């Protein structure tokens, strides 16, 4: 689904290669500052790239803006929900439909019925509570805001979903729900790249795990090779691979 080769951003990210297959959750971990978020931003056209090739569904793409990344089949749930995720004073509905608004419009005018229908459906599918999509999104709990951001991106019907710390600042119940949602999506053939610093989460959810250290990425660890000690070796650069 996603094949990245030799990705560099001219700064922190140095020659990163990784693949995400359909129906697979791939973990991406490392110490803070290892360049994980920068990889996601470079993939999604939020930061410039200096080298590397990206293929989505086998098609070479070169997104220079989030809009181009979306058209290529990528979706990105950012790490800092308040800063980069939600528009706090817009409703849940307006937040969910933001990337696909043009598709819900006729001659530039939003078709409200259609939009409301889609928002209600997404709220139900993702178990957003309270279920009323007309509420200001800032009034929802962190976990429900996060579900809304995930619902926003799944509405674009992406091939690959990049999740950056999807359960940070989310209570235990919502965390389990979000993991269940991710599991369902993967079962339907979505590829997921999950960036996370929480090793238990990474090890529990991922099919394979990449570890980054100072902008470089190590070959992936398969499920059977996963252990906290092994990941920490790679993350701190102590491993002699």
């Amino acid at each position, binding site marked *: 689904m996603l094949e990245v080769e030799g990705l560099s951003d001219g700064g922190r990210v140095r020659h990163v290669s990784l693949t995400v297959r359909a129906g697979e959750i791939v973990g991406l971990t490392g110490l803070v500052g290892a360049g994980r978020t920068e990889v996601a931003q470079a993939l*999604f056209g939020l930061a410039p790239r200096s080298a590397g090739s990206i293929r989505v569904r086998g098609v070479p793409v070169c997104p220079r803006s989030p809009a181009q990344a979306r058209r290529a089949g990528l979706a990105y749930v*950012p790490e800092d929900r308040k*800063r980069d995720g939600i*528009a706090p*004073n*817009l409703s849940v509905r*307006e937040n969910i439909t933001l990337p696909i*608004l*043009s598709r819900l419009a006729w001659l530039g005018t*939003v078709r409200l019925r259609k939009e409301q229908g889609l928002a209600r459906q997404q709220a139900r599918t993702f178990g957003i509570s309270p279920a009323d999509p007309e509420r200001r999104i800032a009034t929802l709990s962190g976990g429900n805001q996060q579900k809304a951001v995930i619902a926003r991106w799944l509405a674009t019907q992406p091939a690959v979903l990049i999740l950056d710390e999807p359960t940070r600042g989310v209570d235990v119940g919502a965390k389990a729900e979000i993991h269940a949602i991710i599991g369902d999506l993967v079962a339907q053939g979505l590829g997921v790249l999950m960036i996370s610093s929480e090793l238990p989460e990474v090890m529990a959810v991922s099919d394979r795990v990449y570890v980054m250290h100072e902008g470089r990425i190590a070959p992936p660890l398969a499920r059977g090779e996963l252990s906290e000690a092994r990941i920490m070796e790679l993350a701190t650069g102590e491993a002699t691979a």
Partner: protein
Amino acid sequence: MSIIGVVVVAMTFVLVAGGLADLSVPATVATGAILSLAFQPVLGTVGAFGAGVMAATAAGVLNGVLVGYGRINAIIVTLATGTIILGAAQWSVGGVIVYGAYPTSGDLLKGRIAGVPGIVLVFGLAALMGHLLLSRTVWGRWTRATGDNYAAATAATVPVRLVRAGAFVLTGLAGGVSGGLLGLTLQNARPGIGQGYEFDAITAVVVGGVSILGGQGSVGRAVGGLVFVQLLTNVMTLAGVRTPVQGLALGLLIIAAVALDVAVRRRGGS
């Protein structure tokens, strides 16, 4: 009030998009007024009006590119471009004061259509179009999202730079229309004709409860603010309040409106 009202509608978009404010309005108004009279002998009334609006819109494009794509502070940009635009408009006609070539060309605006003054109809149309654009269209939603959270709108594939730039193109266009109407009504135009229009427009928008912090507000509220400020000014004048005191009152009103906005936002906790 109708003439300034056209600018108020557009200024709403600048504030809602989080673009702060457009201070080049006096210059675009003067451009619209001067050109729509100066070009009358060459292009006719309609042609000259169009030329004035186009020149003012071009100035708005310049502002939009610098603010939206250059990411330079809007206050500084529009302060600078306002001076440049005004100079260019003055220089292009050579003189300091311009008179209309056809004294009857403003009659349609001053006359009444179905009992409503023509100029009020123009304002009503502008307000209606602005309202629909902000509340019903993809562009309007993008404008609110951009002003509410620029980074999140960017990540959600909203063309944030274009949206911000577009708001300044709108104020340029509105300044041109407003200036053209002013020129045709008065049948003369000086470079200082639009002085204070930026202040009056921002006052109306802010008093109407449109957030200076971006993301929140509607054309309806801004028009409400305009009506309120005009009524207040009229009442004060009728009550014999002197002009300097009126200025004091309006200034306090703006501070109160902005303070209330910031306080409400803090309590909103977002």
